[in-house]
Every structure is written in C-alpha cells, then in structure tokens.
C-alpha cells in the first residue's frame, strides 16, 4: 500500500434516466478505478433507484446502463453502501436490488456481496472517514 492512496467516495443521490447524473457518476467511477485508490460508492435518496433490478429501457430508447454496476467488482470497486432509510421511504428492500458481487483476492477469490446495507448514521460515519467526496 502506497502512502498516496486516498479514500474516494462517490455519493449517488439521483434516479437513473430522468437526469444524466447516475450515468455520469458511473463513467467517472470507471475512469477513477484506473488510479488504484480506495474507492467506495454510496447510494442515498433517489440514488437507491439506480440499483433496482429488472430495468428494461427498450421502450424509452435509452441505454440501459444498469448491467455496468455488475462490472465494478472487476475494477476493485467492491464497497457499495446502500442506505436503509432511503430504501424504506421508497417502499423498497434489498431484495429489489440487483445482486452485485466481487471475488475477494485476499480470501481465495471467494464471491462476496458488494452491496452493504447501512443506516443513515452508519453512512454518516463512513463519509467522515473519507479523504474526498464526489457528489452526483
């Protein structure tokens, strides 16, 4: 571990498709993944909608970028914090979200969940540990 590694968090607060924020965030995350930093993503407010499974955009003629979240593990982006309160306010549970996993190289490549369900208070604490916060 180099001393130059910083903790980067991407904070996602918008629904997909209605605005470009969600897609832009994903693009920046994938670009940033090349720089070997300690990256995590947080999904709060309408951002939790980005991870809802079963998205089918054929009828609105837009690109369905939701499968891209499944590729994040291959870029060592393995910490996706989802805030419980935001899910509950929207009538959602973790079962409504895409199953996202990664292979842990420090644990014989065991498959593990990338999604970490956290409370608002827990996430506030995790944000406090970050060096840099990106807002989308």
């Amino acid at each position, binding site marked *: 571990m180099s001393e130059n590694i910083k903790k980067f968090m991407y904070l996602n607060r*918008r*629904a*997909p*498709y*209605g*605005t470009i924020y969600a897609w832009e965030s994903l693009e920046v995350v994938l670009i940033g993944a090349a720089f070997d930093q300690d990256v995590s993503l947080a999904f709060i*407010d*309408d951002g939790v*909608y980005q991870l*809802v*499974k*079963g*998205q*089918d*955009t*054929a*009828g*609105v003629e*837009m690109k*369905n970028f*939701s499968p891209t979240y499944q590729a994040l593990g291959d870029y060592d982006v393995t910490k996706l914090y989802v805030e419980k309160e935001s899910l509950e*306010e*929207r*009538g959602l549970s973790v079962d*409504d979200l895409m199953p996202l996993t990664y292979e842990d190289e420090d644990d014989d490549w065991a498959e593990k969940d990338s999604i970490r369900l956290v409370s608002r208070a827990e996430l506030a604490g995790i944000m406090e540990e970050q060096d840099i916060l990106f807002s989308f």
Partner: protein
Amino acid sequence: MSTLHTVNKSPFEKRSLDSCLGYALEGSSVLLYEDAVYGAIKGTSLADKMSSAAGVKFFVLGPDLKARGVSEDKLLDGIEIVDYAGFVKLAADNDRVQAWV
C-alpha cells in the same frame, strides 16, 4: 370540463407531485411519467397522500416504469398503465393540460 395534470419529477426530490395533488380537482386525471413514476409505487412514504386524492384518476407511463425496473404488481391500486399513444389520447380527451414540470 376536465384537466389532465402531468408530473415528470421524482416526488422524493421535488414538490411537483405534491403541488399537483393540491390542484387536481374531482374528475381530473393525473399522468405520472419519467421520474414521477416512482410516486405510483405502493408502500412508500407518500402512498397515503396518493390514495387520499378523491375523484382523481391516476395514469402512469408504462415504458418509463419498465426502464426503472418497476413491475406492475408494485403499483398502488387503481392506477392505469398507458403507452405513448395513451398519453396522446389523454391529452386529446381532456380540455386542457397542466404540466407540473
């Protein structure tokens, strides 16, 4: 005389749907599309408000539901799904359109 109200912003981010519900009189129609379709889901913090809108008929745009992974069984009771042609028909069948953009 009837009015079609349209809402396209997420009710969890903007107040457009709330404003609309304050103005939608008995006999009017409300069409939810784009990010406003999230307002049509049951079990949310605003479901009670939607259900208490008396004499208002709710519609939701099907392609926008599908894009967002919202299946039909997740919708509040009494909401009708329309396609783009149905959107046009609603606009034509009502006397006026109020867009809560």
